[in-house]
């Protein structure tokens, strides 16, 4: 997937990670793919397809959801996912996708245990409702914990001992890529801008350090935020606005993925006329008769009506495409799958993403 590097440059930091070995042939490659989109655009479907596409050819990819919706489990037709990374699908060429349903509470407990060895304190916190409290008095904390979890998976290396959190360096990345099914477009900039979120609250201390670590990964060229949209006005507008916000936050925008694209059935002139309600029904009648369909006249009339609706949509879609053209980011398109999405369709969509240069 192509990446923008200018935003990273703007952040004014060098990301020469210690211990990056020659095995990481391309340290600048995107390894954290954050997928956002307006509700109803198929964000989760695209995130899952993207994970499969990235794993194709033998990679290991982690697919993370952060909103407790169990959308991944539903897509893959499995039981609800725990707070645990576990394989969920195989990709062609020996690849593998693991999935994780992250939630702030578990992340906080894990974090306390990892950094403070405070297992007992964690249990107490849960009993007192303190986890809810902590994520409430510091609203940004919930986001920090979730982005922290995803960015930790990006940085994690095989030889690294998870407990203790030391960066042993040298080893291979456990995941070739991490794909995050992120919050919707309206909240994405706030969600990812973790430094700003905690800045007003925890002025010093471990949360701040945790946020800094997450932020350095999020701002690096290793992270790209992809926007899923459909060819409708509101989702497209939110995409344009969201991209501006992500840029302003100093993060990298990846691709715009246009989902649920209708096939093009007609030539431009036919479409133009149909949009104005003019369809050659005579030709339709002759065709329907040739195909041996009954009630050719009436059917032709109905088909003409559907054609003109389709053409009106297509012309509205063309205007929305033009609007998206103003966004200077790579664009990919995925077809409308009328019958709904299951594991089989995810593989098909993954294939389409690969064909488009992923």
């Amino acid at each position, binding site marked *: 997937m192509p990446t923008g590097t200018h935003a990273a440059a703007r952040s004014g930091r060098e990301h020469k990670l210690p211990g990056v070995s020659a095995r990481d042939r391309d340290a600048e490659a995107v390894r954290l793919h954050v997928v956002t989109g*307006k*509700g*109803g655009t198929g964000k989760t479907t695209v995130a899952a397809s993207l994970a499969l596409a990235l794993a194709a050819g033998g990679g290991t990819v982690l697919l993370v959801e952060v909103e407790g919706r169990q959308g991944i489990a*539903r897509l893959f037709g499995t039981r609800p996912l725990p707070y645990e990374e576990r394989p969920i699908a195989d990709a062609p060429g020996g690849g593998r996708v693991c999935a994780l349903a992250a939630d702030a509470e578990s992340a*906080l407990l894990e974090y*306390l245990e990892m950094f*403070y060895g405070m297992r007992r*304190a964690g249990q*107490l*916190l849960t009993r*007192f*409702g*303190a986890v809810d*409290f*902590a994520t*409430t*008095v*510091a*609203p940004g*904390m*919930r986001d920090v914990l979730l982005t922290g979890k995803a960015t930790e998976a990006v940085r994690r290396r095989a030889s690294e001992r998870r407990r203790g959190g030391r960066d042993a360096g040298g080893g291979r990345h456990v995941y070739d890529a991490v794909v995050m099914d992120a919050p*919707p477009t309206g909240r994405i900039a706030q969600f990812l801008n973790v430094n700003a979120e905690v800045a*007003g*609250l*925890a*002025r010093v201390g*471990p*949360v*701040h350090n945790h946020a800094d670590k997450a932020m350095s990964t999020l701002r690096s060229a290793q992270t790209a935020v992809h926007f899923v949209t459909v060819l*409708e*006005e509101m989702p497209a507008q939110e995409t344009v606005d969201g991209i501006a916000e992500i840029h302003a936050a100093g993060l990298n925008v990846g691709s715009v993925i246009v989902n649920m694209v*209708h*096939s093009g*059935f*007609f030539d431009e002139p036919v479409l133009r006329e149909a949009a104005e309600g003019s369809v050659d029904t005579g*030709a*339709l009648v*002759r*065709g*329907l008769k*040739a*195909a*041996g*369909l009954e*009630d050719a006249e*009436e*059917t*032709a009339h*109905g*088909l003409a*009506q*559907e*054609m003109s*609706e*389709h053409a*009106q*949509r297509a012309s*509205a879609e063309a205007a929305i495409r033009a609007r998206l053209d103003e966004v200077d980011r790579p664009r990919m398109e995925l077809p409308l799958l*009328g*019958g709904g999405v299951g594991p089989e369709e995810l593989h098909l969509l993954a294939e389409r993403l690969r064909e488009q240069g992923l």
Partner: protein
Amino acid sequence: MSAGGLGGRRPASASAFDVDALLSDRGTRTVVCCGSGGVGKTTTAAAMGVRAAELGRDAVVITVDPARRLAQSMGLRELDNTPRPVDLTESGRAAMPGSLHAMMLDMKRTFDEIVEAHADAERARQILANPFYQSLSSSFSGTQEYMAMEKLGQLRESGGWDLIVVDTPPSRSALDFLDAPERLGRFLDSRLIRILGAPPATGAFKVLGAGVGMVTSVIAKVVGAQVLKDVQSFVSAFDAVFGGFQERAERTYRLLQAHGTGFVVVAAPEDDALREAEYFIERLRTDRMPLAGVVLNRVHRTAVPGLSGPDAAAAAAELEQAGDHGLAAAALRLYAERARVRDREQWLMGRLAANHPDVPAAEVPAHPVDVHDLAGLAEIGRALGRA
């Protein structure tokens, strides 16, 4: 394209949701539109407002974060918490028996107003300046929902409105707006916040033992000592107004259950949206909230009821093989693709109807283009009314 022009069949078991009857019933004082994000909830709320005005009601629509053009279509320019009159002359009808106002919710200002109403000037100043209050009132998850309900309570109590239509916020979970007032109340009244708010070494600490000290120290570590200090000063200042707060939240909750309120669950014929709708229907029932019906937006309908998708595809294949009648073949291909979408929608809506046969449903046909003017809203309102 005329809204009801294409024939469609309702799933067998559910009855039709008579939106006109709901809106024209003078006993209906509040309509709450809820549902997951991206299903056209705000549009439905606005369309119901326009329809209510057509039916002779004096209605106000409370919207939360509407799309820019939808807001503009109703003459809304900013979040200002004040109902503004909507000029209905552009809705395509000469004489309008009722009227419509609309407002966009400013959640922070609504919160501030409650504080100001319940605290003396000095205490209110202290609370409003507290950093913890500022983050609570602008970003506590659920504050927006709480404030939407608070605003509803205010408008309802002011008595100036014949009908109030509320668009609920695009929550992470559809349940948020029912839970938020209680969640916020519970949070502010929780044992923990009491303990944290109390100066150390008072009774609470002794009774609860060493565990509390540990919890406090962990929280201080995690969120920072300064935050805890802010929380403590907030709690001591807020204590005086808290009773009033809790009481208002309970009053609003009871108002929602009362006769005169109708909940409308808005959904689109998509898997996730319908699952969320079912979840919501069940939740409203559990909470004994009056459910008026379900609105299904963007339903695709067929213009050729007698032709199945597979038949259309087979006919297209035949023509393509013969190599002529390209236009008819393409039209049949288009039809087959749309039929796939329709069949799935019908199947999904049938699932909802089968699981909730007693919940009436109304369908709004999919429009080829987005709605963003009053005429479009009025058309949707009428399509709802005819269902």
